[in-house]
């Protein structure tokens, strides 16, 4: 049985997820993913009538139980500086990150 998630596909997922792995870690993760997929494929044994809807939260919300929308009233945060204080690199109140690669078009 060939693995559903091949090394190439695995690399693509790693790229999407912004990860980087050493080979040993990659091999473990890929094996576990393929094992989990075996379990996931059990879902194909479930007969699904066309009218079976996509679930959202399990619980059904009604007009009475849904929380409703937020009134448009300004309530400023009391401690924005505490939020900013969590950032690894800050300069003049800006959060600093390395640059994003960019290509020039001639």
């Amino acid at each position, binding site marked *: 049985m060939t693995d559903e998630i091949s090394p190439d596909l695995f690399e693509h997922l790693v790229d999407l997820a912004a990860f980087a792995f050493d080979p040993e870690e990659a091999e473990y993760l890929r094996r576990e993913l393929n094992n989990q997929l075996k*379990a996931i494929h059990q*879902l194909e*044994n*479930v007969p699904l009538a066309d009218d079976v809807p996509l679930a959202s*939260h*399990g*619980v059904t919300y009604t007009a009475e139980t*849904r929380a409703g929308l937020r009134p448009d009233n300004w309530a400023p945060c009391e401690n924005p500086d505490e939020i900013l204080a969590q950032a690894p690199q800050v300069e003049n109140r800006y959060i600093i990150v390395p640059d994003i690669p960019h290509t020039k078009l001639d």
Partner: protein
Amino acid sequence: MTLMDQSAFITAQKVKAGERSAVEVLESALERIAVVDGRPGSLDYGELTDEDKAKVHAFITLTADRARQQAEAVDAKVRAGEAVGPLAGVPLSVKDIFTVKGMPSTAASRILATFTAPYTATAVQRLEAAGAINLGKVNLDEFTYGSSSESSAFQPSPRNPWDTSRVPGGSSGGSTASVAAGEALLSLGTDTAGSIRQPAAFCGVVGVKPTYGRVSRYGLIAFGSSLDCPGPVAANVRDAALMLGAMAGADPHDSTAAKVPVPDYLASLEQGVQGMRIGLSPDYMKITFPDAETGELVEQDLPEEIKAATLHAAEVLARLGAEIVEDVPMPHTAYGIPAYFVISRVEAASNLHRYDGVKYGYRTQSDYHDLNEMYRKTRAEGFGLQPKLRILMGMYVSAAQYAEQYYARALRVRSLLRSDFDAAFDPAGAYKLDALLTPTTPTTAFKMADVYGDSVLMQYADQLTVPANHAGIPGLSLPGGIASDGLPIGVQFLAPDFAEETLFRAGQAFETATAAEAWRKIKPEVLR
């Protein structure tokens, strides 16, 4: 017998009446922690000693000074004759997946190890407002991803107070261990597939997964946003009911917290089970899992002791006047885990996108040339294996070309899991159940390291609890016996949406009726 061997309910009564001070109770809790807990979980833990292996290690962050201030404030109010809340002076531990302003909020992950939350989760805020004394943060599986608490980046991970060579379960293992060991009288946990009920069963305590939307998720560091439920961990049913009442209800910060009135759970607690229709399902007396080699489904009966505990509970309830309805079909139960493997991963992958080294928490200490490299290194170094697995699977099953095959299908199966319960609870249906009675877990607590690393087998520990998360319905696990290995066995009640009252009534009736049974006298190893 110390103050920590009393119930939260009695403790609050005594503190309110001025018979005991909150500070005294707190000191008793800190004393217990000093005796049983051992060193707290940390990133830099070194080798485990034999002494480590005999301790509970429930805590990551103990905030004794803050707790003392809270306790003094409660006592001052009592002395001044001011009103105090229903949890006055009750020591509480909080799973480190909730934010508390000014406290480290780590999710047991390296990537959040340095994060100090600038705001407090609604559930915590309400419990503290009710007078609970917050002892600090307890350990869990990293980002709640596991059923043993072993995947925490903060080691030593929690151990089972009944046998410290065994896991406490997870992911709320620190919560249930702390309550079982009498370090806290209450703990705030979360349940996404069974993460409150499974460790509650393993640790011989009561754990409640409320209805989705019953308790606000604001401040709960998200795993599976459509599945996550904050809930109580307590030593007994009354305490769990007391705690849920203090934290349930709508919240302007959570659009999914339902506007459903919160009943006085204590008022109906003693009403008994006379006339209650309680179901048993053969589909909860077995587990079904794919063979690791072939992928074929293997069906296996639950261990006799586990089944026996559930049947014993049914007999007790029948004696108390409940009508036991047998052979209730719950045909999609076996698909709970496969559907969960898809849905929870899609949500988790997205929820974990935000950990990128930009705004908070860990940023790689090694060199990087551009943003992408910073992202990759930060996430590779900051996340443990379990988050990585969940993210990768989530990426795969929600990718544009696979989403229909996996994600959409899983959501449809989730609808069927819900319809199993709808049919069982339908007042006009064939079964008209008030509650379903099942075992909580397929096994008792397993040995540390026995299952860890096998992500499939680990997930199947939640097979009997996860259907309630898919369906959104409430569930309660409480001790139902002690197995021959000396470990607790849990039994579970499941009820319709927002029928937590039913769970508490049934649980209380069972607990009271079995108070004199021999297994109730056995204490956890660390307390003997």
